[in-house]
């Protein structure tokens, strides 16, 4: 099955969705069908396919650059594609209920379809250009989805911020990929990896046979390691932006202004996770470049812990989930950064896979609860899980998974990340040790805020919130996701993800750390919000994301606008001045000429003639005698 089949249905759904956007029922049916078909195709392929399948378009005739436009599927990519399609289907089905009253539902559904298509493209892309295509389209769709309720100034601002922050980071992404492609004279991922890979075997053989390392590098045609490091760092910068990692972290929490299903999609399976997919594709190069790994590892580590702490202190539960996303994505990236050369990026991808399941569940459930409770603030949502049995189950499973309790899907994947980080720390050539330490700390904090979320949502309140006309489709979605979160860990049995064994020791350690976090969270008892007990003073700052927004404005936005004013001034007053100056000078010359001839004295003509003759004669005779 050609990989293009995975992307096509959602693209079609998006295209047709624009056409039928006026009719909610058609739009909904189309959207769900599009993602559903993709899900089916992905599952079928995942089950039936063993090796790698490559799909081509006619390559672009670009002279010395080869752009084959290849797509490739292998089991890991298919697994990720399947989960993306699953989440997208869930979101589409859920939003037929959630946005039933919205006057622009059709547009929303079409945009979600396009968003899904873009993410699927990134997942199955084996060509850097196609990666950029998917990457940028996702950014644009996030702008549309976050700003869906564009009548609200906050939503408009959040959408703008999300797009601009990621686009600024994309400067690095695009440059990095362009540089990589330039080195390989091809945009094919395989060709790029081959061109930039360190020819280790050759070098080792040369060194063994007695030549120096420098000679060996030269003899084997090794690529410029410094340039490779720079390019990879550039790509990493782009990934940090899209994945909302430090220093670009602030846009994601604001993005909560979008409709909850959109948040679920952005957070769970698509945009923020895309960076992990891209870096996994470039893993062979990344593994050879310690500097890029350090940059990624450090940024991920800082983000992991910072976001977890901020999540704990949020007064708004939806924003808490947002920050938890930032933290969890940092864990995935940390896994990629920490993984030693032999390990591969699959631990990070596995965590992506599981995170997609439980985070979408949590978001969709919180969305329902918020509808029932009339707001997303922790105080409003207090006890709202009582609205429906499925919510209680969903929150329980979801938060257990988020906290990383063993056996549920989130726990399974997190243990593998820990194990990978340990391997990396042992190998000692990357940021493994830092990631490991911070990850352990983060696990505790994560457990704490998961506990907090569960406590708040399931607290006993006198007035039970009403379920509020939920359609069977929406509750079915939640049930399915709940079940998958519980049993999703079984994916390991398929052998899709090439991760190592996890020893019991890790299991024990995890339980210990999680238990610690839960215990800390429970210090204030079961009835009080742990954040009020432990982080009352942090909450206002956490809600503002520690004021990073102001820093962005002061450091980037304002200087750029000021520069723009200066440039606009220069444009009219300096660059254009010579144009106007010419006009003025010409007019002045004309005026002078007119003045000189105003008299029209007959004698003036004669005088001029004589003077000119003398001058010309002198010039002529002196110059050419």
């Amino acid at each position, binding site marked *: 099955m050609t990989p293009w089949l995975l992307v096509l249905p959602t693209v079609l759904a998006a295209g047709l969705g624009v056409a039928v956007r006026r009719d909610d029922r058609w739009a909904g049916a189309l959207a769900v069908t599009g993602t559903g078909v993709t899900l089916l195709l992905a599952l079928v392929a995942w089950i039936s396919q063993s090796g790698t399948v490559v799909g081509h378009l006619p390559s672009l005739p670009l002279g010395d*650059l080869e752009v084959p436009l290849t797509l490739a599927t292998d089991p890991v990519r298919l697994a990720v594609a399947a989960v993306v399609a699953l989440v997208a289907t869930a979101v589409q089905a859920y939003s037929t209920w959630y946005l039933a009253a919205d006057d622009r539902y059709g547009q929303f559904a079409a945009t979600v379809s396009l968003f899904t298509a873009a993410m699927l493209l990134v997942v199955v892309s084996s060509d850097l250009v196609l990666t950029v*295509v998917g990457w*940028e*389209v996702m950014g644009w769709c996030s702008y549309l989805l976050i700003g869906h309720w564009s009548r609200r100034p906050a939503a408009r601002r959040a959408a703008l911020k999300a797009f601009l922050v990621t686009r600024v980071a994309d400067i690095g992404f695009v440059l990095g990929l362009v540089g990589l492609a330039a080195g390989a004279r091809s945009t094919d991922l395989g060709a790029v990896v081959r061109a930039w890979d360190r020819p280790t075997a050759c070098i080792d053989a040369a060194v063994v046979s007695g030549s120096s390392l420098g000679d060996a590098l030269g003899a084997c045609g090794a690529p410029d390691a410094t340039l490779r490091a720079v390019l990879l760092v550039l790509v990493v910068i782009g990934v940090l932006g899209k994945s909302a990692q430090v220093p670009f972290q602030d846009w994601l929490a604001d993005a909560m202004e979008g409709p909850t299903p959109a948040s679920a999609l952005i957070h769970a399976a698509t945009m923020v996770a895309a960076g992990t997919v891209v870096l996994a594709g470039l893993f062979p190069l990344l593994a050879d470049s310690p500097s890029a790994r350090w940059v990624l590892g450090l940024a991920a580590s800082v983000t992991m812990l910072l976001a977890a702490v901020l999540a704990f202190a949020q007064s708004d539960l939806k924003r808490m989930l947002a920050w938890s996303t930032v933290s969890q994505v940092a864990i995935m990236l940390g896994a990629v950064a920490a993984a030693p050369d032999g390990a591969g990026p699959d631990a990070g991808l596995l965590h992506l896979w599981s995170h997609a399941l439980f985070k979408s569940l949590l978001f969709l459930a919180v969305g329902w609860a918020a509808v029932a409770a009339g707001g997303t603030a922790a105080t409003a949502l207090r006890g709202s899980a009582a609205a429906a049995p499925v919510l209680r189950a969903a929150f329980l499973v979801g938060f257990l998974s988020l906290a990383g309790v063993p056996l549920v899907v989130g726990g399974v994947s997190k243990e593998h990340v820990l194990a990978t980080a340990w391997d990396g720390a042992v190998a000692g050539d990357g940021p493994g040790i830092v990631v490991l330490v911070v990850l352990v700390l983060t696990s505790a904090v994560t457990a704490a805020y998961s506990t907090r979320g569960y406590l708040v949502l399931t607290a006993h309140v006198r007035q039970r919130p009403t379920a509020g006309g939920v359609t069977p489709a929406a509750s079915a979605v939640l049930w399915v996701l709940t079940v998958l979160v519980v049993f999703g860990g079984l994916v390991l049995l398929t052998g899709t993800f090439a991760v190592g064994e996890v020893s019991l020791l890790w299991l024990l350690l995890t339980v210990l750390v999680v238990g610690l976090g839960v215990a800390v969270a429970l210090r204030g008892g079961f009835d009080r919000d742990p954040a009020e007990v432990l982080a009352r003073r942090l909450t206002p700052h956490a809600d503002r994301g520690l004021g990073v927004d102001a820093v962005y404005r002061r450091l980037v936005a304002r200087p750029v606008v000021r520069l723009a004013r200066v440039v606009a001034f220069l444009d009219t007053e300096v660059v254009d001045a010579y144009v106007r100056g010419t006009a003025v000078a010409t007019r002045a010359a004309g005026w002078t000429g007119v003045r000189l001839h105003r008299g029209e004295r007959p004698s003036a003509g004669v005088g001029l003639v004589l003077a000119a003759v003398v001058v010309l004669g002198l010039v002529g005779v002196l110059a050419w005698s």
Partner: protein
Amino acid sequence: MVVSLLLALPAAVGLWLVSGGRALPVRPARLLAASTAGLTLALAVLVAVTRPGVDRAWLPELGVRWSFGVDGISVPLVLLTALMGVVVTAHAWVEVPRGGTPATFLGCLLLVEAGALATFTARDAVLFLVAFEVVLVPMWVLIGRYGDARDPRARTEAAQRFVLYTAVGSTTMLVGILLLVLSAGTADLRELAGGAGAALAPGTQLAVAALLVAGLAVKVPVFPLHTWLPPAHTTAPTAGSVLLAAVLLKMGTYGLVRLPVATVPDGFGRLAPVLAVAGAVGIVWGGLVCLVERDLKRLVAYSSVAHMGFVVLALASGSQTGLQAALYANIAHGVVSALLFVLVGGLKHRWGSVDLTVRRPALRETSPRLGFVLLLGLAGSLGLPGLAGFWGELLAIYAAWRPADDRPGAVLLSCAVVAAVGAALAAAYALRVAGLVWSGDRPDPESPATPDTVGVERWVLGGLSALVVLLGVAPMLLLSVTHDAVAALGGAR
């Protein structure tokens, strides 16, 4: 024969409309103009498919021949021009500006089209120049007579500035062409590109290239020679703006490809760093001005400066990829800017002005179709993948990163970085416009809603939007057309 007909048809009908038929009422006039444009488009397609040529003596004294024909480089531009002819004449159903008779207006549009077609098909350097000048007077009339009715003074000034500034460029180019033709001994562009130009002494090549580049840079326009463009666009009527952006600017880049790049590659190579820097500065400069510009039309004009910066940068890189990128970005900008100018012109028609500081009901709320097209245009303008603008700009950055071997790599690499920053600026200004015009509150019930697009305007916008998407999702359509000609150019080096 077909080529002659392609040029003669719009020229003849245009001339008749501005002379004998000037008094024709608007209905028959626009029907005539539109059917002429449609027929021209059909002829253009025929020419693109069959690639005929015509070659007769014209001025034997100067070795100038009446030689027209197309190759892979000119075919897309011929099609674009013919298409824009249809767009602007169809737009007459939406709006016929006052300032003179409708027939004269339409005639001028057709004359501009004819001149542009002649420029793109000329195979003789001097003939190219003559064709290049043909568009000046009709365009001058379009801006000066049919421009913004509210400000006659600004109109006159903008028209005068347009014609004089571009004349500086074309006369400089004329001197360059003469030097080239006289030193190479032939005016045939094919011979010149086939080695007659490359055989010149390095000093002559440099002089020719300098004159040609300086002259054509005005038309493109390349920073810092761009200041004629914003006033011209601001005051020109919608159809004029469309032609200006989609056709006239392309004549500059086409000239760059045809003349200095193809004929004096070594001389051009020595100038390339300067051109690359100018292009890169233009990208950022235009983007920055767009961030604070108040008038939407001016803003789109400045964004043109930025986009043409990408084209120039790609050209300067000297590689085949660069040439392909430049040609692609060229066409893409033509389509996207045409879309934006039709749209912004429509908004100006509805609102009276397109001052961005005036608060108006958001388009998304009152006129969703217009809003959709605006958003599409802005997305295309910021280089969103899947839309026309993306390929040219990405490939331009690539080309600058990996230029031809004889180019100074460090300079072009810095230009690539600057261009990438410029792409982010494009996002910033596009979203600024979207935030101010497209999204916003529901209007007060009292404030008048902006009428949504209907009728011909809807079709025009729809067609252009479809083209923007088509170019974005199927780049091979265009790249494969230009590829052979570009490879031939590369082979001549």
